[in-house]
């Protein structure tokens, strides 16, 4: 059991590091989802069922969704700006 818990803790560290060093936000969202999942498993393993459930609903529904929506908005704004610029050129 101890080995398992240690491994989970190290997994969290690895996942967190991966999130930081993924520089592209779209890919990073995947990393954040993974970190959220590892954290949920960690809470489970440390007998924290309530926290684990919150982490699942936030990590699986709330956060990635908000991030993806924000990214979609950023891309759309960039597209609109680009189109405007092209229009001006013509």
């Amino acid at each position, binding site marked *: 059991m101890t080995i398992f818990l240690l491994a989970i803790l190290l997994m969290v560290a690895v996942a967190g590091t991966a999130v930081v060093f993924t520089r592209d936000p779209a890919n990073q969202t995947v990393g954040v989802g993974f970190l959220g999942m590892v954290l949920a498993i960690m809470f489970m393993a440390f*007998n924290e069922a309530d926290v684990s459930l919150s982490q699942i609903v936030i990590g699986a529904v*709330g956060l990635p969704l908000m991030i993806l929506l924000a990214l979609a908005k950023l891309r759309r704004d960039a597209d609109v700006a680009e189109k405007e610029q092209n229009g001006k050129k013509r």
Partner: protein
Amino acid sequence: MPGMNHLITYTGLGVAAWMFLVGLYGIVTSRHLVHLCLCLTVVQASTYVLLTVIGYRPGLPAPIFTDWVQAGSLAVDPVVQALMLTDVVVEATVVALLLAITVKIHKRTGSTDPAAINVMRG
């Protein structure tokens, strides 16, 4: 085995410090505001790890009394878990606020690079 239990505590403390610093490093070197927000979630995850190992009691069950966990018996620390529930909510809301700011900043300035959007020097 008290030695083994402390091993988990110290590993957790180390992982928490690592997450805190690596998250800060991400913020310090970030070139995209969304990346910056997500690095902040890593900083926050460090407090999860810290609280988790603090509340952990080796070999004890979750603090939920069932047919096989008799009411009033020993369990892992429920207080820390209540604190962590608050912490999880704080995380979600802070990220929501920051993403909303990011979206608007991009709309106003056309950039998401923290180094490029700063106009408030001096």
